[in-house]
Every structure is written in C-alpha cells, then in structure tokens.
C-alpha cells in the first residue's frame, strides 16, 4: 500500500461526550460530578486509495465519515491507528502536505462572508504561496469551468447556496491539490447545480489525476463519479469494493420491469409486485431466478417490453444498514 495516495490502518477516534438527565437536580449533580460517555466515532477503519481514484464514502449521519475526513486533513488527532496522505502523517501538519490537499465541506465555508470571493482568493494565494503567474490562469480557468465569473465580485453573503458552493470550490482548488476530500459538496443544491458540480469534479479528476474521497447522501453523485465505494456505519467499515458489487453482496434480488398488453393481470406468481403504473409492472425477484422468471414472463404473457435492473442504490444502502442493525 506504499504507493497509495491515502492509506488508513486501524484508525480510531474516541470522544468523551458529556451527558446528563434533564432537570434541575441532574444539573446540580453535574456541577459536582460530570458524567461522560465514550463515543467511538471511528472504530478501527482501514482502507487505501490509489492515486487518481474517486471513491465514495457512504454512511448515515453520525457514521464517522466527517470525523475520518477531518483526521485525514489533520483537523483532528486520531486516538489510535495510522493515517497517511501522500506519504504524510496529517496530524503533523507539514506544509508540503497541506499544500497538496483540500477539504470541501458543504455545510462550512472558507470564504469570508463579507468580502467578494476574489479577496479571499488573494488570501489563499498568499497562504498557499501560489506564484501570481500560476494563480491567475488557475483562478480564471476554475471561474470559467464553474461559470462563476459574475459571482466572484459580490460579497459571499449575497450568493445563493449553490452559487456559494461553486465559489467555495474555486477557492479550495486554487492551489491545485492532488487529494480532494469532499464532504457533502452538493448538499442542499438543486438538481442542475448538483449535476454541474459532479461534472466539474469528474473533469478536475481527469485533468489533474487528483484522488477524490467523496461523501454524499445523494446516490446520483456516487453513481456518476465513483466506481468504488466504502460504506461506514457506527465507525466501522461494512463494505469496501466496486459500486456494482454492493448490490451483488447485499441485495439478493433484482427488479424486472415489464410492460404488458393487459396490465391488470396478476403477476404475483412471478415475484413480489413492487409497483404498478398503467400497463407497466415492477417485480422484485430473487437474483438467482431472474433469468428464469424473465423467460417465463416472455413465454406465458403478452409482453410489450421487459427490463432487468439491479435494485436502486439507495435501496441497497438502506439494506446494508438494516443488515448491520440486525442482531
């Protein structure tokens, strides 16, 4: 794993979280004796990411995704285990490391709200020591790619969420980082804006060979960008492999969509009817029986059209978490 852009081995982060019951008595008691609970936010996580790879980092809220990204960015010290990014230990905060990474958090901002983004870009130029002859073309290229030419002169607080996110991304990439940690970069954005940012990330990866670790609750982001996904829940990794393999491993069924001449026919004997829309019926069938059921449908019914699909990725992810919760 020495050539990996990101190398994580048995990484752990434990927080002591204060807690108490509600009410005056408990509050008074808490003054004398503070009760804390140990929360294992990240619990022995291991993975590696090759240079140029785009990996989806999936999990429900509180799964440990952001904590992991913060440890990889040097913003949090791990409690145990090892993390290396481009050969550097993030917590050491070496400048050669910090100049080669970026962290974009959809619900945070690095640009000053009261200033036009262009002023904050200047600060980044100074801090990241970007020579002006490199800074200007990079800035202009990013502005052009994300179509924010008329936005970067306005104070950031006057921008909409989507506009702000785009200029945040420009600010994060001015130093042309080799590793991008993207934490929900499309959160709260409309579909068009999400698509724009997805295609931009793909383009940046193609042009610069950058390594990307992406967290997102929007499966469209993951499907569009990531061949590989890592699923984390309660601080532990549940799955690490190809996106397609997720359905293979966790979903024991496929869906068959079938358009019939007479859509009112009961298809219950072929599989579980998930959905009926006019003459179009969606069936859930065991994966091993898919081809057999399809053949039977074609032979026994007047079929106008038929599709076989993997289950929607959202359903698979839900299934992964449900299986993890099961005793």
């Amino acid at each position: 794993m020495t050539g990996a852009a990101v190398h994580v081995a048995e990484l752990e982060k434990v927080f002591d979280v204060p807690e108490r019951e509600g009410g005056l008595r408990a509050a008074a008691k808490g003054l004398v004796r503070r009760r804390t609970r140990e929360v294992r936010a990240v619990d022995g996580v291991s993975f590696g990411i090759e240079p140029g790879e785009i990996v989806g980092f999936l999990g429900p809220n509180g799964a440990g995704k952001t904590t992991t990204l913060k440890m990889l960015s040097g913003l949090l010290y791990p409690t145990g285990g090892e993390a290396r990014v481009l050969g550097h230990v993030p917590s050491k905060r070496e400048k050669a490391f910090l100049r080669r990474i970026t962290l974009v958090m959809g619900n945070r901002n690095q640009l000053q709200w009261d200033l036009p983004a262009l002023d904050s870009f200047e600060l980044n130029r100074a801090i990241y020591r970007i020579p002006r002859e490199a800074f200007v073309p990079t800035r202009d290229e990013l502005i052009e790619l994300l179509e924010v030419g008329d936005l970067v002169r306005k104070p950031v607080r006057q921008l909409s969420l989507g506009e702000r996110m785009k200029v945040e991304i420009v600010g994060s990439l001015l130093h042309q980082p080799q590793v991008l940690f993207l934490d929900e970069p499309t959160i709260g954005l409309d579909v068009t804006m999400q698509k724009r940012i997805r295609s931009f990330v793909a383009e940046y990866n193609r042009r610069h060979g950058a390594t990307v670790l992406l967290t997102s609750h929007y499966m469209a982001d993951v499907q569009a960008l990531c061949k590989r996904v890592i699923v984390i829940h309660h601080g532990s990794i549940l799955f690490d492999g190809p996106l397609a393999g997720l359905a293979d491993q966790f979903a024991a069924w496929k869906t068959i969509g079938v358009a019939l001449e007479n859509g009112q026919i009961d298809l219950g004997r072929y599989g579980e009817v998930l959905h009926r829309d006019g003459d179009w019926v969606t069936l859930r069938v065991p994966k091993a029986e898919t081809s057999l059921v399809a053949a039977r449908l074609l032979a026994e019914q007047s079929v106008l059209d038929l599709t076989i699909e993997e289950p929607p990725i959202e359903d698979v992810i839900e299934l992964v978490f449900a299986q993890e919760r099961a005793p």
Partner: protein
Amino acid sequence: MSTLGTTLRSELVGAGGVVERNYYLTKRYIWWDLAWFIWTVANTLTIVFIAKGIEAQGGTLDVNRVATSLLIGAVVWAYLGVLFEFLMETVAWERWEGTIEYTFMAPLSRSMHLAGMGVFSVLYGLLRAIFLFTVCIWFFDLSVPDAQFMAALVVLAIASISFLGIGMMTSVLPLISPEKGTQLGWIAQGTLLVVSGVYYPVDVLPTWMQWLAKISPATYALEAARAAILDGQGLSTMWDEIWPLLIIGVVSIPLGLWIFARGERYAKKHGKLKRSG
C-alpha cells in the same frame, strides 16, 4: 542561507496575506468602525471629564495635567482593547464566520498567522489611538507644549510586543472553550486595567497589587507615555521603562505561541475546531 531567506520570505508573504485580509474586512465595515470610534470618543470624554468634575466640586488640582493624564490612560487602554480584541478574534471570529477549520488547515505556521493578526492590530490600533488622542485634546483644549509624541508612539510600539504576547495567551481561550472562552479573555484585560495605573498612580494600590503592576507591560507603557507627553521626556531618559518592556516582550511572545500551540493540540484532540460545540 538562501533557503532560510526563501522560507522567511515565504512565511512573511503568508502573514502579509492575513494583514491584507484584515484590511479588506476593516474597509468593508468602515462606517461601523466609525460608529464604534464615536463610542470610544464618548467613553474617553467621560473619563477625562472627571478632572473637570473634581475642580467643579472645589478640588484643587492642575486640571490640564490631570485631564491629559487621564486621557493618556484612556487612549492606551483603548489601544490595548483593540490589540486584545483582534487576537481574541483570531479564533472567536473565525468560529463565528464558520471558517475556523479552513484557517487551521491552511499551510501557514501559527506564529505567522498570529503575527499577521498582531501586525494589523498594531497598525489599526495606533492609527485609532492617534485619532482618539487628537479629537480629545481638541475637545478639551488641553495644552501639551513639551510633548514628545514620537517618543510616546515608539514606547507604545515596543509595549505592543508584550501586549501581543499576552493577547496570544488569551486568544487560546475561545479555542479550548467555544462557549465561554471569549468572555474569559477579558479577565486578562481587566486585570491589566486594575493593576497598571491606567487612571491612577500604581502607588495607591495595595502592596501585593503593586507587585502585579511590576510585571504588567501596561504599567511601563503608561509611565513612559505620560513622561513623554506631559514632561517632554525623550527616549534616552526612558530606559527604566523600556528595558522591562523588552524583557516582558521577549518572554511573552514565545510563551504566548507555546500556550496557543498547546491549546490547538487540545482542540484537535477533543474536536473543538468547529463552528459550535
């Protein structure tokens, strides 16, 4: 040597970036700054009026001298307030803006980051102090014929090194306590106000407080500023005030950086580098 020079230059460029950003932000809110300046003027006038009030109540005093002495105290105090506020905001304001994680992830050494904040606060504070002093002198028509203004400014600049060191120590408080750290930072400022003879000679303090006055850089800064403005003393006669300021400065800056580094380590260990919590 050239590598050292390049590194130093590179670091200074980063600190310069922080100064530049603060300039942009101050410019953005210049009218609010003006409003705040008017409040400071009103506050200072109130303090200087005390001298007039004592005279009006039958007290015998050199009103011009006492009023100028109070004015110097109020101006130095206001200057100190600016320095502390900027350094406290290094963390508190970034947290409020939601930029704190990015700032602490940037490839800028903490010393240069704090130096950038400090240099801007000194420049801004000095400019403000000059305006404040000028407005109040004009308002009360105070006479300072022998004043050595340049000497007073130089002493204030030397004292700023110590003030920045103490400011760095207190700026760590919002880092380790997002909820109450800023308010706790005022403790240092308040303590300096009590023991440093801002509005009265330190001789009137209890003995144990006079010991605290000896380690407060504000004590020496005020004594020297009053000597320069009221008595027309030059720098050559102020060595007794300058050397303690230099010593406190030499100690407080590295100590401030060390304490800040410890605070940053604590914050990264306990997950305090975020907007809330």
